């Protein structure tokens, strides 16, 4: 992972994400998965509002930006119309699990043949670090100044509990980009093989809003991994 995939658009680098952000790691893993599968020219890449929108010109990939998790239906509309395309919705944890959660839920039980990549940084990054469904108990955010409540959503656990047996559901982490790339590649393969929905959540760094230095950022992600375990939760493709 020390060089760059072909789809990496050089003219838009350095990218616009904050220093230390996890998004570029997830995007690079995606770029490599696209390259290994040789699907650059048939990929439709949908991105959402919030930090993910900064990826609108990140790649030499046909890209469309919308908002509020509606990337999932836009990309579904593309996929239904062009079954030969590889359709990817790239959203944050807010778009996937809060404001656009009905779209994810619907695509899950309908087993829509698209790939959804969810970047989970346990807060709303672009708006300045508010509480998300994934925010941890007692976590300080700008909308939980006294610390968040005890309730949070493990979106991948929810997805795995209702996903079709042919779906693919996994969670990786930006601290292990090689594994993350493998999960994303398997997700895309699942779509190419017409098996149905594939979801990869990536636990991701957000030092700007976590207000953490390098050491505390590492500690934060280690804690996130305890709450949101890494692994493949629905994967019957290789059996």
């Amino acid at each position, binding site marked *: 992972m020390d060089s760059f995939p*072909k*789809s990496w*658009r050089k*003219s838009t680098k350095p990218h616009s994400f904050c220093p230390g952000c996890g998004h570029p790691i997830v995007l690079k893993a995606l770029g490599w998965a696209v390259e290994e599968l040789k699907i*650059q*020219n*048939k990929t*439709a890449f949908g991105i959402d*509002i919030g930090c993910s*929108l900064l990826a*609108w*010109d990140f*790649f*030499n*990939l*046909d*890209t*469309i*930006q*919308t*908002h*509020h998790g*509606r990337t999932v*239906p*836009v*990309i*579904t*509309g*593309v*996929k*239904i*119309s*062009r079954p030969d*395309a590889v359709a990817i919705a790239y959203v944050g944890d807010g778009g996937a699990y809060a404001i656009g959660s*009905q*779209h994810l*839920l*619907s695509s899950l039980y309908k087993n829509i043949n698209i790939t959804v990549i969810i970047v989970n940084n346990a807060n709303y990054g672009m708006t300045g670090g508010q509480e998300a469904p994934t925010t941890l108990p007692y976590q300080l955010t700008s909308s939980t100044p006294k610390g968040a409540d005890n309730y949070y959503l493990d979106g991948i656990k929810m997805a795995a509990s209702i996903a079709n047996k042919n779906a693919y559901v996994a969670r990786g982490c930006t601290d292990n980009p090689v594994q993350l790339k493998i999960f994303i590649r398997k997700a895309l393969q699942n779509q190419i093989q017409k098996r149905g929905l594939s979801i990869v959540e990536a636990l991701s760094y957000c030092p700007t809003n976590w207000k953490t230095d390098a050491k505390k950022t590492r500690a934060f992600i280690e804690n996130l991994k305890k709450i949101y375990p890494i692994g493949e939760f629905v994967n019957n493709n290789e059996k």
Partner: protein
Amino acid sequence: MKKDKKSFLTGNEVVIKAALAAGADSFYGYPITPATEIMDGWAEVYSKNSKLNFLQAEDEMSAGFLMIGAALTGKKAFTATTGVGNVLMQDPLSMAEAMELPTVAVIGQRGGPSTGSVIYSQQEVNLTCYGGNGEGYRVVYSPSNLQELYDYTIKAFNTAWKYLIPTFVLTDGYLLKTRSELNLYQPKANVTSKPLILKKANRNPNKESDYVNLVNTYAIEEECYEANIKLLNKFKKISPEIEESYSYNLNRQTKKLIIAHGLIASAAEEAINIIGKNKKVGLFVPKTLRPFPQKDLLKQLGKIKQIYIYESAANQLDRLVKEAIYGSRIPIKHFGYPALGIEAETIAKLI
């Protein structure tokens, strides 16, 4: 246009026939009275034709965004909704407006506010013309009978794809559920659709211009302003080609002018026949509510001494007319009946 045989159909069936005649190939929707039968009708034709696409969405936002996804690939997709569904639909259609995407939405207006009632209403004029967080760069047709519902639904597709603009057919539950005789025909030619993404398979992976990167967000105000001015100038340029109106019994002797649209315009025309065509009462009907046929209306005002506006809303058409004739001193009598139908006899008595 080749005239076909007479058919006896409901408004909902007319919409399906018109969409197919216009080359529609995809429908995405969510059930809501009185527009549900359009979705059911499409599901029926879809089940017999593998070239068509359909998905019942989880809500109207999803339906609209599915339609946008289809439009991006060059499909002629449409939807149908109303009332609170039309409220949700403004989310995707604001995006279509911003990104100049061709879409068609048939709106079977319900009484409002909120869930209101389901048969008569002209209370979604404001929402359909100006809904969304933009300036209303969209086209809204308001048919008055089933023949016009057929004509303008076909036209809506051709306008949407010719000008790359979200287009609406604004009707109501009464017209959609009415059964009547009309002429079906196949238009001589329909505007063709082109994909905006995934245009070709053979591309140079390193050539940036070979890839389409569409964004709906601007980093700085000046960029957003530029995008707005581009949309404004386009809308100004295309409006004269799109604006349509109809007039009845309007001539140099006409002293009293009725202005009405949609179903109420049909009642107004009948009212003039009841009153008598020699009584110097004429009718002006905006067929496009957006862009509003301002020039057509101003041309008719010369000898008019009194304007009457009728609508099944408190003051939605009224507002459009007053904006269009700003500066005129002709007195206006306005009759607004939100969520009520207006019969020809009522109009005749009021004049």
